[in-house]
């Protein structure tokens, strides 16, 4: 078991210095995520113009995986359409869950592929997906908190 598979440079970097770590103004969507197992918290705000995520940012606290994943997520979806973002989440989810066939599609994930190692650490999957679940919740503008339970 190689820890480096999980804690790659990119993840350590984004965990320590998360990108888009501020609330964008203006914003018209908000999502809150909470991982009850370890107390990871994320508040996400984004500006949706039509079908495009024109700006996105978050404030959060928690483990390196959760914060780094949210950080790379915001980088990946900023400027993309909702549809593209949802497609990315689908691929990302399949990758971290270690689903068959997921391993082949890393190119389209770009930097997000650094989280491939999470599939060897099933206890941390919820950390890696928290930011994405929160994004989902923000896009749907649901009132309650996203949780990975």
């Amino acid at each position, binding site marked *: *078991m190689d820890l480096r598979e999980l804690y790659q440079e990119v993840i350590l970097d984004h965990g320590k210095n998360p990108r888009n770590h501020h609330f964008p103004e203006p914003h018209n969507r908000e999502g809150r995520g909470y991982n009850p197992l370890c107390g990871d918290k994320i508040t996400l705000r984004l500006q949706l113009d039509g079908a495009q995520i024109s700006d996105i940012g978050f404030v959060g606290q928690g483990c390196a995986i959760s914060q780094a994943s949210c950080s790379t997520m915001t980088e990946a979806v900023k400027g993309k359409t909702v549809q593209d973002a949802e497609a990315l989440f689908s691929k990302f989810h399949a990758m971290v869950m270690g689903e068959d066939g997921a391993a082949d599609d890393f190119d389209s994930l770009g930097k997000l592929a650094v989280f491939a190692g999470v599939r060897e650490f099933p206890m941390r999957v919820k950390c890696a997906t928290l930011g994405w679940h929160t994004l989902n919740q923000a896009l749907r503008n649901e009132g309650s908190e996203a949780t990975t339970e």
Partner: protein
Amino acid sequence: MTQASTVAASKDAPFDVLRVRRDFPALHQEVHGKPLVYLDSAATTLKPQVVIDAVADVYARDCANIHRAVHLLSQRATAQYEGARETARAFLNANSTHEVIFTRGTTESINLVAQSWARTFLQEGDEVLITELEHHSNIVPWQIVCDQVGAELVVVPMTDRGEITREAFEEQLSSRTRLVAMAHVSNALGTVLPVAGLIELAHEKGAVVLLDGAQAVSHVPVDVQELDCDFYAFSGHKLYGPTGIGVLYGRERLLEGMPPYQGGGDMIRSVTFAETIYNDLPYKFEAGTPNIAGAIGLGAAIEYFTSFDLHALHAHESAVLRHATESLESVDGLRLIGTAPDKVSAASFLMDAAHPHDIGTIVDSEGVAIRTGHHCAQPVMEHFEIAATARASLGLYNTTEDVDALVRALQKVQELFG
């Protein structure tokens, strides 16, 4: 040499941890290619072979339902089950087996008291007193019943060292306090509460007292006569016994006056559609087929545990905890959470370098098992304005070498994140 004579021989000897470790099969395995260092006994303890055998033997031989049949297997199973009850009675020094109820665990024991005693006897405006360091299982059942009857939940604050002081307790105790529920030992912080004195104060106000003994029974002596508590709850799986079994001790006259918790078979003397007559204690509170193998396994666990000189055992654990406290305090950027002078078993901590969840994953890669998170004590986390801690906790099989392995693993955390 039979297991029984091996165990009996230990009684007069000092605590020989290396010999004791051989009794625990789960201890002897590798995790990620490294020898397992198990520092999570507060979550659940490993089991000695005698307990594993006791449970297996129930299914292999005395496999029968209890109390019901006249055949030999049932007689043997019943004798073993009731024998385990007597073992639990003696362990707690309860007056009678009428006062020893088998439950699924501490949580169910507390819910039983909440729904059977508190729901019946609390009135609107009454107060239930708990403390800030309680496990959720000693908070939520009281929230539920207070909601149901319109009573108020009052909380004794803890100090920043994680103590519940007599002064703070007295300040929250009032003439309206009808029940006090508190941990004997804190699971998140390891604090040993000064329960004897607090129980006296509570009784002066006419309140009944329930102690959550889940973390206590394996680390401090428990004598319900000396403590004079009204209810005492503990779990088998934190006392080197199986999961799915626990005990509620209750003062006989209180249990007599309480309505049943669950209805069903065994807790009745007779059933007609016109009228059902409940069974005597303790059966009134044991509806349905119980965890027979679990209870018998718990009996074996108590026998194993009490086969040691408990003074020597506690002294051993104290020495390891002292070593843990000193070693952890010397790690750069590490802060201990829970620093009461009177502590057992648990060392909760934070590191500047990394979040507890990351700490846990990294030390796991070195074979070290600790727990990370809020430990079902979110109010404790809130007190320190944190979301989670990493917690190492000791059992009787742990050594100072185990602590050293943890500290080495923490160096890895520093390397990776620092």
